């Protein structure tokens, strides 16, 4: 591989709180009144019905590890703080525990997915997503095959992954056709990798 493996950048995990603290006053011009509608368009329905009880934050497994508040993201979405929300939504594991506990019966996990859709379309793409997508079209899986893993596979009596096999190449080609047809390659910026 020519390019070095990009690290998961901190901004795409946390950082939300710090950035808001920097801005002492939020001008109205920074708010996007149509943000909730946009989220709804990508499947994050009823974002406006959130009661801000914080139950989702309490049950979120991610919130134990990093400064990540599901409730606060819902508030930002209601408020129209688009610019703060788009680069931080990739840590959600979509375990749906928030949905299970929400008394207002809304689904924060789906809002997170909608935010990812919007972020990608706005061109805010974290490097690790690009890497995963590149791996997908190159090797047919989002994790790069590793000689170390092959060693373990042989020890366990499994076949190593032969990415140069004809069968394997056919599958990868099929994936590339799909990725190209769905315009996913263009969206994520990996057109060069897809040879269709």
């Amino acid at each position, binding site marked *: 591989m020519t390019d070095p493996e990009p690290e998961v950048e901190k901004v795409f995990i946390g950082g939300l709180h710090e950035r808001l603290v920097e801005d002492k006053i939020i001008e109205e011009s920074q708010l996007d009144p149509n943000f909730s509608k946009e989220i709804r368009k990508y499947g994050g329905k009823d974002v406006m019905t959130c009661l*801000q009880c*914080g*139950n989702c*934050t*309490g049950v979120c497994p991610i919130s134990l590890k990093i400064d990540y*508040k599901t409730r606060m993201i819902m508030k930002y979405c209601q408020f129209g703080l688009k610019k703060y929300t788009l680069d931080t939504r990739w840590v959600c594991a979509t375990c749906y525990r928030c949905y299970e506990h929400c008394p*207002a*019966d809304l689904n924060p996990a789906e809002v997170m997915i909608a935010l990812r859709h919007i972020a990608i379309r706005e061109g805010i793409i974290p490097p690790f997503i690009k890497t995963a997508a590149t791996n997908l079209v190159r090797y047919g899986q989002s994790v790069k095959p590793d000689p170390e893993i092959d060693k373990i596979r042989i020890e366990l009596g499994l076949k190593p992954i032969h990415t140069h096999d004809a069968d394997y190449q056919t599958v990868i080609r099929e994936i590339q056709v799909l990725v190209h047809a769905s315009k996913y390659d263009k969206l994520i910026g990996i057109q060069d990798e897809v040879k269709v």
Partner: protein
Amino acid sequence: MTAPAPQEKHIETSDPTKGAGDGAGSKIGVFICHCGSNIAGVVDCGKVREAAEKLPGVVVVKENNYTCSDLGQAEIIKAIKENGVQRVVVASCSPRLHEPTFRKCVQQAGLNPYLLQMVNIREQCSWVHSHEKEKATEKAANLVQMGVSKAAKLKPLEAREVPVEPTSLVIGGGVAGIQAALDLANMGFKVYLVETQPSIGGKMAQLDKTFPTGDCAICILAPKMVELSRHPNITLLSYSDVEEVKGYVGSFEVKVRRKARFVHEDKCVGCGLCAEVCPVKVDNEFDLGFGQRKAVYIPFPQAVPLKYTIDKENCLHFKSGKCLLCVKKCSNQAIDHDMKDDILTLKVGTIIVATGYDTYEPTRKGVYKYWEYENVITGLELERMLNASGPTGGRLIRPSDGNPPKRVAFIQCVGSRNKKIGNNYCSRVCCMYAIKNAQIVMEHEPETEIAVYYNDIRAFGKGFEELYHRVREDYAVEFIRGRPAKLTLDPKTKSIKIRAEETLLSKITEREFDLVVLSTGLIPSEGSKRIGKILRLTQSPDGFFMEAHPKLRPVDTAMDGIYLAGCAQSPKDIPDSVAQAKAAASSAAGPMFARKVMIEPLTAVVNEDLCQGCGLCVDLCPYSAPELVPGVKGGMRAHVIEALCHGCGTCAASCPQKAISPMQFTDDQIYSEIQAALTETTRRHSPKKKAEAEVSP
């Protein structure tokens, strides 16, 4: 200006063929209301008037700014008296709003009040078509045309009068039922109060103190309970269930099952000797399982009537046929193990439903671990514990070890404002009872630390906000805005750790408490569900009884003569329940004072010659108005009890023989409306448009 209406004649010719001499050829007056700009702002009323003037039979057409005003009504009266108008069409708002107004007006002018036809050109026209003015005008003209065509077929009807028995039945002996019964009795009416429990008092009797004033609940309720039991006009039927209600406003026939309490009420003096010797101890339901009672018991010391009851399920005599210690002890021979249920039949004129509420029971597998951790209790359980006559004598303890808790947490909105469990509504009392209980706990044990986990604090009533302020100022009760996510138990100390996001801090907090109180919401009671079925009352989606109008008829139901009081209608606090009970009593007193009610003649009428007695209408009617009776020429025939019929038309629509027709909505009348709707008379734009279309290419 407008194109001629060649089809006009069509209607005219169709009229006399079916009219059969009723309204055919009668003079019709049309009154078009502007309703300020509500209608005139959208509909061109002038055009509607012009169109109406051309309609057959129409002799007067008037436009008014407000037809419902004195001026507008005078116009109608004038037209009837001077122009000889025989049928009145008012094109204005919904008949639900002003039909009674105009009926009275028509009657005042000497015409039968049912010779009025309302045409709704506001709700069903101008309001919904505010962006399409031309089409709205066209529609209004069409609707008027339909109304006029129906008006020609209206028949005079007479409202019927039925007598009203000056006796009332109050179902439920909580504070609302007690108040309603007392008010009616004080007005001089006879009242039967039916309560399913051995004692009246309801949920209020279980409470410790009342918010926001801190009055002792039973101390203010007990005098009312005693007054009720001694009132000469009130017959108290405790430990009884309403089984069946037949009839209609003025003369309901009610079957009441007096459950056998195995103690003769007339002989028992409430001395309690029987309970002293009774060897069986069981959990007392009144104390929600915290305290115990005997198998022969009164639920609480202030019970009214102060008559003991034997619990058949636990009494040794019913299990083994032996014991009878209580019988030996009772000096009045009041105890009778062979007592049977008794059925009473009451005749009453009005019914007040005050069947109250139950508290929400947290789910077994819920996050709040009510069923798993001993030290998680509900608000009502805390009330019993704080109550001086309760199981702990007013001492607050941890159920796990009996020690007083040092740290207490309240969790709000358990079972209310939760879409997941289908209880979308706010229970209205939980905020305040938690705050009030926090205050009482602090008064008992000033060293206690109290935290209230809340979503929103709703301190909306008189003196509520002040109490909310007081518990923070005087007792430093902490309010944490956040819904707890997880409760974990410390197996050694049995303390409970609550994890929640303190949303105003935007931090997740984990704090330990000795006792957790769930502020459970209010749900419709089991009794409500049963009584609702018996009385065929409608319920709103949350399961509480539906009032006739949410604002203007809050205690009436869709059934005449049946009224609502207290939490059966919606969650409410004690002052609101009492206020509603007083309102229900005054509403029920109306027909009982008058000794008669007028029954709308808009009922279904059966044509006996056509009816074959299939009974479909009997099964389908939501008000059980039709019944099968032997016909004059033999066989069974349907007969509609007018006082029960609401004229909904279900029977008429379903009748395979077309033997039933609802007055004012007969097939003939409806067909004439449809026919008018289908004619082209008022579609003045169509020919013009056609002409344009021909020119344009």
